[in-house]
């Protein structure tokens, strides 16, 4: 059941919510139990088997976590506690690995050694990548003594809570559980208004904008996947168009998840903060899929950096201090952990070479950005501290490299990605849709002489629609405040408060309020989205 379906909006959500409020009148426990049950129904809707796969994994994780909690009481159990943690992480990684990577691995071995392992059809349980990360984080947090005592119900609710079940935001136990314990489980007017507004903003982003662009981006990638040449214009527009599509698709989904959770009185963490406005790639990753970045930083990058630093200092080599940065230290303590972390991120997104390259590219981009900062600090220590923004040039460069990397994210094969990239730099020439030529008169001859080709596969209508959708989406992504900025006064996501900038000028005038004016605006946005319902339209991130 997709968030953007009549089933969900008119059936599942209102029924679940109404019964939740009714139970809430009697007791919080019963309302929360109902929420667990409803979440299971939501998950089972696709395939009953999904539940049969996930429930045992929840039970095993719960038992391991309980054991960790008991062992944590006494310092003398540190070894046993560590072993339990390692076993738990190994179980989850193996669980994910079996469903997600068996075929990729077998295929890669076949490619490399000419073997003939048979690829079996393994069905990927929905959202398993997200669920697995969340479970691993929980085990590490219990081991680190950051979790108060918990019951099976607490744990099941934390994992299964349906707004964030399939594709995040990736939440920490310690940020949602206190909210469930305090939740009134009753109707609350403000929560209802804020939640519905976020939900409909997200629905609009997904159904209107992302699904609006998608049909005009797909033919370009399909052509490239067949190995047929793509010239500059469609290649560039395909890359930028998809970057906008995935931004509105995934941030739209995240807004919807955040909005739905709020209807139940729970605030989820912010996942997107206008990442396409970023002026450096470091800045970009602090604003794109924020909950993944913080997961990777806390549970992969930081432990790796600590381990590498210990090893390096124990050998008497220079570390990565602010003043005496050596190239060796940069490679070992910055580039290595960064690239490795982003490699894991790439692999986590999808079992394929294209995702691995996407991750590695971002690892290299981030390393260069960090290296540049260190260099600046060394050359001009006084200036560098205050000047972390990359300005206009930084914005253009960031947008360009993000779009280039996105080609690997979208293209189904390396071959397809290379066709688009080659097209972007002009290997396949400059071309315009053939039908446009017919309307150009004498100009057509001139263009022909300057070697502008005719793209017979690309219709002028497609070209025009892609231009229109891309311009609209680009304008909204770069010039408008985002949904959580509009609602900043109502803490739409955990910890989101209006910044100084947002309390003045145009931001202040645009600030959302529970008023008739905004009710009409939100209704218009919702109608624009709902009128475009039709056909299957999955969220891009639900495949992971």
């Amino acid at each position, binding site marked *: 059941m997709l968030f953007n379906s009549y089933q969900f909006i008119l059936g599942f959500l209102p029924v679940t919510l109404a019964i939740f409020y009714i139970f809430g009148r009697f007791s919080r426990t019963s309302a929360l139990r109902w929420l667990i049950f409803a979440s299971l129904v939501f998950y089972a809707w696709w395939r009953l088997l999904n539940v049969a796969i996930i429930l045992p994994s929840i039970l095993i994780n719960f038992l391991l976590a309980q054991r960790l909690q008991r062992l944590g009481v006494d*310092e003398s159990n540190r070894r046993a506690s560590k072993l339990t943690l390692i076993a738990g992480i190994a179980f989850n990684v193996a669980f994910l690995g079996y469903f997600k990577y068996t075929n990729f691995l077998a295929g890669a071995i076949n490619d490399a050694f000419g073997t003939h392992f048979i690829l079996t059809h393994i069905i990927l349980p929905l959202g398993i990548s997200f669920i697995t990360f969340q479970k691993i984080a929980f085990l*590490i*947090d219990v*081991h*680190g*003594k*950051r979790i108060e005592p918990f019951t099976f119900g607490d744990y099941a609710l934390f994992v299964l809570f349906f707004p964030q079940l399939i594709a995040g935001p990736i939440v920490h136990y310690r940020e949602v559980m206190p909210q469930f314990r305090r939740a009134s489980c009753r109707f609350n007017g403000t929560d209802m208004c804020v939640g519905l507004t976020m939900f409909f903003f997200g629905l609009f982003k997904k159904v209107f904008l992302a699904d609006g662009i998608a049909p005009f981006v797909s033919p370009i990638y399909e052509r490239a996947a067949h190995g047929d040449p793509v010239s500059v214009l469609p290649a560039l527009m395909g890359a930028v168009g998809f970057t906008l599509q995935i931004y509105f698709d995934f941030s739209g989904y995240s807004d919807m998840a955040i909005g739905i959770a709020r209807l139940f009185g729970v605030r989820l963490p912010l996942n997107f903060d206008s990442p396409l406005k970023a002026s450096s790639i470091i800045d970009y990753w602090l604003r794109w899929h924020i909950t993944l970045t913080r997961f990777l930083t*806390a549970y992969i990058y*930081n*432990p790796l*950096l*600590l381990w590498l*630093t*210990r090893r390096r*200092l*124990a050998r008497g080599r220079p*570390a*990565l*201090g*602010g*003043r005496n940065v050596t190239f060796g230290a940069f490679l070992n*303590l*910055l580039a290595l952990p960064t690239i490795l972390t982003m490699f894991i991120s790439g692999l986590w997104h999808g079992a394929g070479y294209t995702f691995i390259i996407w991750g590695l590219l971002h690892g290299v981009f981030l390393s260069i950005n960090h290296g540049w900062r260190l260099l600046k600090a060394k050359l001009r220590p006084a200036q560098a501290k205050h000047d972390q923004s990359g300005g206009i040039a930084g914005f253009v460069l960031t947008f360009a490299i993000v779009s280039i990397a996105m080609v690997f994210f979208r293209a189904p094969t390396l071959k397809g990605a290379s066709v688009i990239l080659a097209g972007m730099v002009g290997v396949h020439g400059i071309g315009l849709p053939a039908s446009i030529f017919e309307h150009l008169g004498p100009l057509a001859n001139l263009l022909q002489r300057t070697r502008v080709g005719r793209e017979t596969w690309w219709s002028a209508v497609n070209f025009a629609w892609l231009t229109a959708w891309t311009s609209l989406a680009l304008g909204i992504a770069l010039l408008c405040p985002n949904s959580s900025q509009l609602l900043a006064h109502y803490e739409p996501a955990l910890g989101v408060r209006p910044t100084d900038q947002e309390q003045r000028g145009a931001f202040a005038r645009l600030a959302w309020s529970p008023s008739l004016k905004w009710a009409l605006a939100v209704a218009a946005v919702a109608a624009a989205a709902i009128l475009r319902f039709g056909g299957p339209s999955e969220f891009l991130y639900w495949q992971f």
Partner: protein
Amino acid sequence: MTAGEVLKSFTQILRDLLGDDSIVLSPSTRRIDVSGWDSFNYVNFVVAVEMKFGVKFGVAEVESFQTVGEIVQRTLALLQASPR
């Protein structure tokens, strides 16, 4: 070893690390209070402390320390648990 002695030792470690002899740490000092004490130098500092005192912090602990005083207390606790 007392908290004061550990703190003095910490101050010396950070002065050497950042090359700034004007640094004076107190239990309530936070990272942002000291110029140049960025995230890399924080990890360097923690590892230098580990080496100096022969202790080892957990990853979660390293992330959760808010003030210098918390690192001092944890170091003392670890020293008591396993005297050198």
